[in-house]
């Protein structure tokens, strides 16, 4: 690995402090967190960005380049995780997004006691990102000429898990879509229902699907976009009842996790099991769209799905 790193570095022309590059050894997750800089090292002569190693092609990518490329590896097209706000920014027309329920927060309704308290967990996540109060950001915005109700999940907040806040925000969003007669787009990434809220989390599945039932009754379009990873309670609810189900390439998508399936069935899992491509082959996913083309394709689909309505 070390030689590879050196090779990549030689291509770079900017003088780079070798103490900061290369990135830390890969962790189990595909996304490498930036190494913490001591206050002393945060000087002007330091490089602006850091480097991220692509887990797929192992190439080193300059962080700024990765950000500019919507967190897609410019070399091999690998999709890194992207935050909800960055994603919204990449989809909607400038200044058109009006967030709703931005302040809504989770409550430890069960007084969940266990290995770690839910309250403490929530506090830690809120501290980590002041921009993220929970695992979804919702609002009304314009994509091309289309005003849409847009909900975007963020895996960085408690694994994108769905508790009361995610369910309530999405339900209000869908209801807003129904009331205004506009399409709903939900971009999912989630580990499933949030255990800490027990049955309240499970009920969000019925709640969101119920809201979508009334949205669909008005013949309004609902597009579900699945991103890496989307699992369990989210896959068994709003994420799979889209008029269109779109996935990002090579996303892991499923009901049960691969390990659970392996443990239960004692069987080998097929190649590419639970990837977007596998699910498209098996008939769940309409089309796989790269993040870079997502906006353009959404506009294309909305143009078709809204066509009959406009004429009427």
């Amino acid at each position, binding site marked *: 690995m070390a030689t590879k790193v050196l090779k990549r570095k030689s291509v770079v022309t900017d003088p780079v402090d070798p103490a900061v590059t290369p990135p830390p050894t890969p962790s189990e997750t595909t996304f490498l967190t930036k190494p913490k800089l001591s206050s002393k090292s945060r000087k002007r002569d330091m490089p602006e960005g850091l480097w991220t190693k692509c887990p797929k092609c192992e190439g080193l990518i300059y962080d700024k380049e990765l950000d500019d490329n919507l967190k897609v590896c410019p070399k091999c097209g690998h999709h890194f995780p992207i935050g909800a706000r960055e994603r919204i920014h990449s989809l909607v027309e400038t200044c058109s997004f009006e967030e709703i329920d931005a*302040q809504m*927060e989770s409550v430890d309704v069960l007084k969940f006691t266990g*290995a770690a308290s839910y309250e403490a967990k929530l506090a830690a996540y809120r501290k980590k990102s002041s921009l993220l109060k929970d695992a979804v950001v919702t609002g009304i915005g314009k994509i091309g000429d289309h005003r849409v109700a847009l909900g975007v999940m963020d895996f960085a907040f408690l694994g994108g898990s769905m508790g009361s806040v995610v369910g309530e925000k999405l339900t209000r969003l869908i209801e807003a879509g129904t009331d205004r007669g506009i399409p709903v787009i939900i971009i999912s990434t989630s580990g499933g*229902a949030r255990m800490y809220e027990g049955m309240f989390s499970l009920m969000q599945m019925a709640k969101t699907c119920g*809201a979508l039932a009334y949205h669909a009754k008005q013949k309004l379009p609902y597009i579900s976009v699945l991103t890496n990873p989307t699992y369990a309670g989210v896959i068994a609810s709003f994420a799979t*009842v889209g008029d269109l189900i779109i996935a990002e390439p090579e996303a892991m998508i499923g009901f*049960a996790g691969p390990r659970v399936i392996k443990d*239960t069935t004692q069987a080998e899992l097929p190649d590419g099991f639970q990837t977007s491509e596998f699910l498209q082959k098996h008939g769940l996913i309409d089309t796989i769209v790269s993040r870079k083309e997502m906006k353009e394709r959404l506009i294309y689909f909305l143009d078709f799905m809204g066509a009959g309505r406009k004429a009427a």
Partner: protein
Amino acid sequence: MKRPENANCVRPLPFSRLAGVSKFVAAAMKHYLEFEKPIVELQKKLEELKLHPEQHSLGISWEEEIRLLERKIEDARRIIFTNLTPWQRVQLARHPKRPYSLDYLRLAFSEFEELHGDRMYSDDRAFVGGFAKLGDQKVVVIGTQKGRETKENILRNFGSGHPEGYRKALRLMKLADKFGLPIITLIDTAGAYPGVGSEERHIGEAIAVNLREMMLLEVPIIAAVIGEGGSGGALGIGVADRVLILENAYYSVISPEGCAAILWKDRSASPKAAEALKITANHLRELKLVDDVVAEPLGGAHNDPAATAASLGSALLRHLSELQSAPTADRLRARYGKFRAFGHVREPAAVAA
């Protein structure tokens, strides 16, 4: 219409061939849970005494000693069963002698005629469904079905449905909707099946579609959790106007074992997880997540299936008649409103402009 004896709609289970409930109780005695041990020991003593009257204590008469023992058993049962921990209730919900859907179909319903298949792929035997009568009411019943012994458990996949099971359930529910028959669902599943085939045929989608469609069905729907209410697999037939739960059943977002493995990194923490998740009937009633708790006989449903079935049957009838008195539009609004209200959030007051 008289139903023919031994109609092939119900698979001839060893259990269903049992003539009466008393035999069932006798069979149930053979299997007991750890915390039932004191009761079982007293019962053994009683049997012994009945068989060997000569061994009775000298101080009191034989009859009196039997009465004394019987009272002791009753007391032990009361003490144990009125102080059950959530984890003990989970074990009761999974008790291998607990009545299953087909048992209730026999005991609380009549004229059940099973209908098979999802018209797409296969007939998932982890689900049973069909026409039945509840009192004088013609209804459609759908339930998840566990097996009682190995062979039947393989057939029933231990009560864990595949996508075709959920699609069969929806097909039957739409049938009910078309012909104005109320729908009763009986929930007893550890969860939807986590397998390769399940994923290849999109178990998540099958459940999600049910959640959406059940919200709009125009006929009354009552769901009853009779044993295990395992997460999405349970909710997949659980969107209803009324959700009932038997006293010792549980309904949870994740199995206590699964939760323990994730949060405690230790499956032996399952009793703690069962406590923390608030999954028992009483907890769920306190949290207003279920509408009614159906009492079980002392010692659990398996101790007296007929009495449990009678309570369940009358609870179902009571809720059904309440639901039928409301106009359809009101009922649908109430159904949506009920699920819409689930959840607790904090909304800091918006800063005034």
